[in-house]
């Protein structure tokens, strides 16, 4: 059993090893795409967060915890904290306009001729994205470390 497990945890297959290198940026890009379009098309913080987490988990299986941690640069549980912070911050602006907590605020301006819409909703979705990604990575990475 232990041998099987060891193989599963850190595969030395060349194909996976190489593929994960290329797949990671692609998957992260895709997750950002899902996050940003989520308000209009299928997607959003939850799905995008899962995709991003999946990308890192794939990398984790190919390269191990240490190099994943290196490429992630921050501790995964810090992502959770940042996400929750974004979620809470996005709730606040409404108070200054005398509205109920979490009421959405929109600001739009033109950048090089295109309309760019920013909103507390987007910030909130970003918070969801980070929490989902951070939570799953925290779980998977600490399990992996417990293994070793």
């Amino acid at each position, binding site marked *: 059993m232990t041998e099987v497990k060891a193989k599963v*945890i850190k595969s030395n297959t060349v194909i996976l090893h190489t593929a994960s290198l290329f797949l990671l940026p692609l998957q992260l890009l895709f997750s950002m795409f899902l996050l940003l379009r989520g308000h*209009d098309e299928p*997607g959003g913080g939850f799905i995008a967060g899962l995709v991003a987490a999946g990308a890192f988990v794939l990398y984790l299986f190919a390269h191990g915890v240490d190099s994943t941690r290196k490429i992630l640069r921050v501790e995964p549980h810090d992502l959770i904290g940042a996400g929750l912070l974004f979620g809470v911050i996005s709730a606040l602006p409404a108070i200054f306009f005398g509205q109920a907590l979490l009421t959405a605020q929109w600001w739009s301006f033109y950048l090089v001729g295109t309309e760019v819409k920013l909103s507390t909703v987007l910030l*909130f979705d970003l918070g969801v994205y980070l929490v989902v990604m951070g939570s799953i990575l*925290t779980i*998977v990475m*600490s399990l992996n470390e417990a293994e070793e």
Partner: protein
Amino acid sequence: MLFAVLSGFIVAALAPWLMGFLKDRIGWGLALLPAGLTLYFASFIPAVSGGEVVLQHWAWMPILDVHLSFMLDGLSLMFALLISFIGTFILIYAGAYLKGHEYLGRFYVIMLSFMASMLGLVLSNNLISLFVFWELTSVTSYLLIGFNHRDLDARKCALQGLFVTVAGGLALMAGLVMLGLVSGSFQISEVLVADGLLESPLITGIIICVLLGTFTKSAQFPFHFWLPNAMAAPTPVSAYLHSATMVKAGIYLMARLNPALGEHMLWTVLLCSAGGITMLLGVYLAYSATGVKKVLAYSTVMALGTLTMLIGIGTDYAMIAFASFLLGHSLYKGALFMIAGALDHETGTKDLTRMGGLRKAMPITATAALIAGLSLAGLPPLFGFIGKELMLEAVLSAEWQSSLLLVAAVLTASLGIAVAAAVAIKPFWGKVGDTPKKPHEAPVGMWLGPVVLAATSLLFGILPFLPEGWVVAAAVTSVKGQSVDFYLSLWHGINLPLILSGASLVAGAVLYALWGRTRAPLTMVNDVFSRVGPEVGYFRFMSAMTGFAAWQTRVLQNGVMGIYMIVLIMTTVVLAGYTLLSQYGLHLTLTGIGEVHFYEWAIALLMVMAAVYVIFTRSRLGAVATIGALGFSVALIFILFSAPDLGITQVLIETLTVILLVLVLFRLPGFSHYSSRFEIWRDGTVAVLFGGLMTLLMLGALDTRYFETISGFFVEASYPEAQGRNIVNVILVDFRALDTLGEIFVLAIAAMGVYSMLRLRAEVKDDRG
């Protein structure tokens, strides 16, 4: 006044920090606060003695009629002055007594909080905020009594005090709530003038509940036993708790409510009888005890009984006696406790039988002790004398059982004189005792308080119009509910009280002479009584309660998870199933089954097969694979039925679940078979019943519709109001964002739970090497 109350809490919070600055002078530094408060409250004397009632009000929870409002009338002012005045000297004293104690900072935090709670209690003009402060004094005094927390006895005694007072507090809360409802307001100033209170059918309940609270707090028979045990506290605490504060809280509340409830017969009877018994019992126990703190504690019980009795008697004389006795007692009891602490500190023993002839070694303490002791004995020209004369006068004026109360009062006075002599004369005069430490005069911080308090007793005795004009007259007005004409003086001419005083003095002298010889027989008698006293009841009750808790835990929490689940599920099945069948009936409908496409049939069949296969398989890998198939079938259902977001999420989660199971589940053993044939049938039945119930509930929900869904709003408002075209996402991050915020917190907590469980284990492993 709000700031006056809060300042105690604020300074309490700063106390440990101030410790670093002031070091050994901390007591003197912190004493500035109560000293300032004394001056602040003293500034109200002219107004209050002129008959004014100062009211201040801050709305707290207006909808519940709960306010932070304060009232300063004669009674409150007298208590507030006593609390801050005596508090000043207690803080100085504690600085010297606990010098160098490792938890001195903690001590001051609790002590100041206690003082602030006590001030809040006597100043509150709202029944609810009064109750809050009341409980705060219980909690802080618990911490004070158990201050020597390494001592098992101290902890036990503190817990006993807490249990008794908090149990009474519960009754008190019920009483206060009823009182507020009946009188239509929770503001005390309005309760006192409410009409028709005594005719209410709830009045008996109100009186009993309120008195349960005050009797426990003020250690009235049969709840008196906790108070002497509370002597486990450091002496400054005892001195404060027993002179002006904690135990007087119950007295305060009875006096406060007397104008509203005093006319009721039950009030009179309960107060007079409990007070009389407590008074007599207290003084007897004080006479028979030998530890100096015990003697003083029981004499406090005696004084509390006297005060309760006086409120119960309720005549003009009784009210004057109440206010004077209260003032006198606070002054001399504070002094005597501090002296007891000094004796303990300087001689190294608490046992009176071993002390003697300390007059030469501790002249200042001895003088203060003599004066305070004379006041306790009720001899002229001390203020205690005025209090005692008035007390006898009041008993003579009583309308209920006057003669019986008189006998008790005279007996108490006689024994009281013997007790006073035992505390104040025995240690200082006569043969030099054999003490563990060589005694010498206490430091200035430890004799200042007793000297000032004793001097005040003397001053008030010689010039009784001073306290009368300052607070006593106004306090009498508050307790009586109307103003009473009187003046205090030492000499009232030769009358019955004076003759009775003289007789008790002679009797007291005889009893003191016998003090040494009566130790052995009294100890024997007390041993017998301690086997049947109310304290035994307390211990029986406590052990019965823990016994009951252990029994019901064994029955309800047997630790077998399967049983818990079966109980929960079967309760649901029986209750929900019965309601469903009786209200709705059994309808196994199959509407729309003809419109199901063949690939949908295939998915449905796949799910059923998965659910059944999982039950019967013996292979763990097979089960996990089947669950995967089930999850992907669910994803297909989502996608086929217009839920792309759900479909994507489900697929991603299924993938991650497989990873999770690979990482953990396969490190667990394979499927084990523990169940007996009986258990299999039992669980199978439960499962079938629950599944059937869910199906019936769903069919019922599908075939009935009571109101339209709220989803129409989301669909219509999604783009115009929330600028989003993916309605599901708009609901998640905009319309119902607060829900989502809560949910990501749940997710975060789950992740942190996993993280800490695994980290903790890693650290344990490290520790073990």
